[in-house]
C-alpha cells in the first residue's frame, strides 16, 4: 500500500516516520519537566515510603509487604521491555499515574500535574547509574487474540505444560507447592498472585496487561518471562495470548462492587443446604465483602492475607445458612508454610506490645451480629462490640471441631456461651487454596443472649478472618466494618392485591369525573339548579382547603416522628431541626384550615 506523501515511501516507512515524530512529541514535556523540582516533589510525597535515599526504606516501609521499591537497584516490575532491561520513561510514568494494584502504591494522575509526574520520572532515574546509558527499547507486542473458548482451553493447556501451577496452584489461588518458598530479589517473602482476583494484579488485570507481564516477567520477583519459550518455538505467541485469556477467565468478569446488604432468599420447598457443595448455592449471587488489616487496637496487623470474603445466604423460615468463601493457600498450621509465617512475623512492623512472635496459629473466621437490635441507629462497636453493647460472635477455627458462639465486648474479649447455649454449626472445606465455611443457626434459638434473626429487616453483620500461615493470630488479622444481612420474606400479598385495587379505583374516579363534567356541560345540570351549583363549588373549595390543611398536618406529624427518632438516637441536631420543620408545617396546616373555614362561610354567598 502506498500513501500520498511528498517523498516516495511505503506504509512501513511512514509508520516509522510517524513513530519518530510521535516520540519527539513525547519528549517535549520532559524538557518542560526540567522547570519542576523533581527532588523536592519526591521528598514531599514519596520519601515517606521509598526513603530519601531511594532505597525503599522510608519510615513506613516496615508496615508494607511487598516493600516499597528500591530505586537504587533499577529493578522494575511493570515494563514494556525485555526481562533484565530498564523500563522506558513511559513505563515508570504509568506506575506513577496508575499506582500498583494490590499494594500500598497509589496512583498520582489526579494529584500531581503532568509536568510534576514527568519530573518525578527523571528524578527516580537519578538513583541508578544504569539509566545513564542508552534509552531501553520496548518489546513489540502482537495485538490481542479473541478470547474464545478454544483460546481459553489452549491457555489452560499451557498453564499445565509450563507449570504455572507450581506457584499459582491448580485453580490459580497462589497455593502451588513452591509458593511457601518464594521470595523477592531483596530476600523478602512474597506470595504467588491469587489469579482469581485480577484487581490485585501488580501489572494490571486486563488480558493485555496479563499478556505483557507474561512477555516481560515481573523483574525483582520470582515471576519469569515467557518470551524466551515463544522465541524458542516451544509455544506460539497465540498460545501465550491463550494463557493470558485463561488467567483472565479465573477472575470475575467485573471487579466486585462493594454492596452493603447480603440478602438471603427464602427457600419455600425444603430446608437450607447442609453442605458447602450443595447445588442450591449455585443460584445464590455471592456478595464480596472487602477486609483490611486490623490497625485500630493493639497489637495491629498491616499485612492481612485475606483481602475479602464472598458471602452467600439462604433461609427457610426456621434456619439460616451462611456460606463464606475466601482464598487461603494453606490449611494452617501447615508445616511447609511455618518458615514463611515466621519470616512475615519478624519483618512486619510496627511491633506493638502483644504482637505475635511465633507462627503456628490456625485459620479463623468470625461472623458477628449485635446481641439485640436497637430501635434507633445505635449498634455495637464494629470490632466485636463494646462494654455497653455486646456482640454475638460465631467463631470457626481450623483446629477446632465446630463453631463456637460467644459474647464479646470488644476485640479479643469473646467469652464462649455455655454448652447448652451453643446453637451454631459449621461445615467446612479446604480445597485448591480456598476455604468454604457454612454456618447454620436457627433464626430463633431461644437463647437469652442470641439475636433473634428477623425476617424482612436488615440486621448488622461484620466479618473477621485470620490466616495462621501468614503469621496472623489474636488481634492481628483482617476485619470489616458493619454490613447487613437481610432475610427475604415470601412476597407479601399486598404486592399482588394493591395495584389492581388502585387501578380500578382510579379508573372509576376518572369515569365519574368525565361523566359529571359532561352532564353539567349538556346544560342539564345547569338547568336543574343554578344556586346549588354555586353551593357545590363552595363545598368543593372548602373540602380542598381542608384537605390541603390536613395534608400539611400529616407531614407535620411525620416530621415530628423523625424528630423523636433523632432525639432518641442522641442526634440532638436532627431532633431539633425536625422539630422546627414540624412546627412550621403544623402552622401552615392550621392556617390553611382556618383560612378555608373563614372564606367559605355561608354569609359570603350574598356577595
Amino acid at each position, binding site marked *: 500500500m502506498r500513501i500520498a506523501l511528498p517523498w516516495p515511501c511505503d506504509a512501513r516507512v511512514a509508520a516509522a516516520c510517524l513513530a519518530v515524530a510521535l516520540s519527539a512529541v513525547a519528549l517535549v514535556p520532559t524538557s518542560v519537566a526540567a522547570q519542576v523540582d523533581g527532588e523536592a516533589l519526591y521528598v514531599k510525597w514519596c520519601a515517606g515510603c521509598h526513603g530519601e535515599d531511594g532505597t525503599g526504606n522510608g519510615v513506613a516501609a516496615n508496615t508494607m509487604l511487598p516493600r516499597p521499591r528500591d530505586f537504587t537497584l533499577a529493578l522494575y516490575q511493570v515494563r514494556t521491555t525485555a526481562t533484565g532491561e530498564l523500563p522506558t520513561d513511559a513505563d515508570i510514568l504509568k506506575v506513577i499515574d496508575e499506582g500498583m494494584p494490590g499494594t500500598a502504591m497509589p496512583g498520582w494522575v489526579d494529584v500531581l500535574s503532568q509536568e510534576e509526574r514527568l519530573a518525578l520520572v527523571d528524578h527516580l532515574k537519578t538513583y541508578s547509574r544504569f539509566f545513564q546509558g542508552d534509552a531501553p527499547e520496548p518489546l513489540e507486542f502482537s495485538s490481542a487474540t479473541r478470547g474464545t473458548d478454544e483460546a481459553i482451553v489452549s491457555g489452560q493447556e499451557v498453564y499445565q505444560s509450563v507449570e504455572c501451577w507450581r506457584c499459582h496452584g491448580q485453580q490459580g489461588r497462589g497455593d502451588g507447592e513452591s509458593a511457601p518458598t518464594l521470595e523477592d530479589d531483596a530476600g523478602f517473602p512474597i506470595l504467588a498472585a491469587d489469579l482469581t482476583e485480577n484487581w490485585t494484579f501488580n501489572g494490571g488485570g486486563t488480558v493485555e496487561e496479563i499478556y505483557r507481564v507474561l512477555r516481560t516477567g515481573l523483574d525483582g520477583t520470582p515471576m519469569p518471562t515467557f518470551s524466551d519459550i515463544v522465541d524458542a518455538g516451544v509455544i506460539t505467541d497465540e498460545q501465550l495470548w491463550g494463557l493470558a485469556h485463561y488467567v483472565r477467565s479465573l477472575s470475575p468478569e467485573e471487579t466486585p462492587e462493594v454492596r452493603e*446488604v447480603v440478602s438471603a432468599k427464602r427457600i419455600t420447598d425444603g430446608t437450607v443446604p447442609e453442605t458447602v457443595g450443595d447445588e442450591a448455592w449455585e443460584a445464590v449471587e455471592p456478595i464480596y465483602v472487602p477486609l483490611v488489616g486490623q490497625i*485500630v487496637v493493639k497489637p495491629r496487623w498491616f499485612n492481612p492475607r485475606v483481602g475479602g470474603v464472598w458471602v452467600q445466604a439462604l433461609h427457610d423460615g426456621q434456619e439460616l445458612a451462611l456460606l463464606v468463601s475466601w482464598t487461603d493457600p494453606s490449611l494452617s498450621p501447615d508445616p511447609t508454610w511455618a518458615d514463611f509465617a515466621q519470616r512475615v512475623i519478624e519483618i512486619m*512492623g510496627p511491633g506493638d506490645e502483644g504482637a505475635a512472635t511465633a507462627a503456628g496459629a490456625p485459620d479463623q473466621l468470625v461472623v458477628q451480629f449485635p446481641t439485640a437490635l436497637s430501635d434507633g441507629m445505635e449498634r455495637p462497636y464494629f470490632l466485636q462490640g463494646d462494654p455497653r453493647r455486646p456482640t454475638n460472635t460465631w467463631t470457626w477455627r481450623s483446629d477446632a471441631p465446630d463453631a463456637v458462639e460467644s459474647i464479646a465486648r470488644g476485640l479479643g474479649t469473646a467469652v464462649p456461651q455455655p454448652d447448652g447455649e451453643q446453637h451454631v454449626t459449621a461445615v467446612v472445606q479446604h480445597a485448591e487454596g480456598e476455604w468454604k465455611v457454612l454456618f447454620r443457626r436457627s433464626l430463633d434459638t431461644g437463647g437469652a443472649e442470641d439475636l433473634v434473626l428477623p425476617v424482612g429487616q436488615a440486621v448488622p453483620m461484620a466479618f473477621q478472618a485470620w490466616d495462621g500461615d501468614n503469621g496472623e493470630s489474636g488481634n492481628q488479622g483482617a476485619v470489616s466494618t458493619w454490613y447487613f444481612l*437481610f432475610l427475604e420474606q415470601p412476597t407479601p400479598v399486598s404486592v399482588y392485591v394493591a395495584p389492581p385495587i*388502585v387501578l380500578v379505583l382510579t379508573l372509576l374516579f376518572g369515569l365519574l369525573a*368525565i361523566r359529571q363534567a359532561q352532564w353539567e*356541560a349538556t346544560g342539564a345540570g345547569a338547568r336543574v339548579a343554578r344556586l346549588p351549583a354555586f353551593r357545590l363549588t363552595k363545598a368543593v373549595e372548602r373540602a380542598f382547603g381542608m384537605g390541603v390543611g390536613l395534608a400539611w398536618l400529616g407531614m407535620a406529624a411525620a416530621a415530628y416522628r423523625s424528630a423523636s427518632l433523632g432525639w432518641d438516637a442522641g442526634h440532638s441536631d436532627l431532633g431539633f431541626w425536625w422539630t422546627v420543620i414540624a412546627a412550621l408545617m403544623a402552622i401552615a396546616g392550621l392556617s390553611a384550615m382556618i383560612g378555608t373555614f373563614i372564606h367559605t362561610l355561608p354569609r359570603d354567598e350574598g356577595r
Partner: protein
Amino acid sequence: MGLLRTPFRQAIAILAVAYALIEFGIPYIPPLFGVASAKIPNTVVLQYLLTVTVGILIWVSDNERRWTEFKKPIHEVLVRPDRKLARGVLLVGVPLLMAFVAYGRALPDMSAPPSFRAIHPAPPSSIPFQGEIIELTGLENPLRSVGSLDEHYEEGKRVYYQNCIACHGDALRGLGHYAPGFNPTPLNFQDVGTIAQLTESFVFWRIAQGGPGLPNEGAPWNSAMPAWENFLTADEIWSVIIFLYEQTGHEPRRWEELEAAEGTEAEGS
C-alpha cells in the same frame, strides 16, 4: 412565547422547570462555581414539588378569569367530543401509572437502614488525655510557639507515614489502600470542608479519642478511626497536626477568628 399563552400551560411549564431545578439544578449548578453539592433525596424532591404545586394553585385561582381559563383545557378534555382520544389515553394511562406506583410501594425494601451521622459533631470543652484533663476551648497548638516548624513537620511526617497512610493515603485524600474496606470512608484532608474548617484543638480531640470518643450523633460504632491516645504522645499528635496543615496547604481556624466572628454576630443582633 405563543406556547405559554394559557395559564394551564404556564402552570405545567413552571412545574417542569421547578422539577428540573430541584432534581438536576441543585446537584449540578453549584459545582460550576466551585461549590460542592449533591443530589437531594427523592422524598425531599417530592416535598418541594408539593410546595410548588400549592403555590401554582394559589396563583391560578387568584382571580376569577385566570381560574376559568386554567380550568378550560381540563374541562375540554373531559367534555368535547373531538378530544375523545386524549380522554381515552388519560383514562388508561393514569390508572396504570397509579397501579405501577402502588406496586413499587408494596415491594419489600431490602436496602440497608439509613445511617445519619454528624461529620463534625460539637466538641467537648475538655477531654481526658492519658490521665490528665485537657481544656480544648481556646487551645492552640503548643508546638507552634516552640522549636522549629520544620522539625515538627518532619516528626509529624514520620507519625503520619507510620500510622495514618494505610487509610488516609499518601496524598491525604482519604484514599489509602485500606480505605475501600471502611464505611464511613476515611476523611479527606485536602477537601476544603475538613481540617480547613476546624481548629487544631478539634483535630487534636478527633485524633486523640478517635471513633470510640465520638458522641452518639457521630455514630461511634461505625468509625474505624483508632483512639490514638493509646498509641501516641501529645507532642506526636500536635506534630502530626502540623504535618496535615503544612502538607495540604490549609490553614487551621484560630480561636481569635472564631471569637471575632461571634462578636460581630452578637453586635449584628
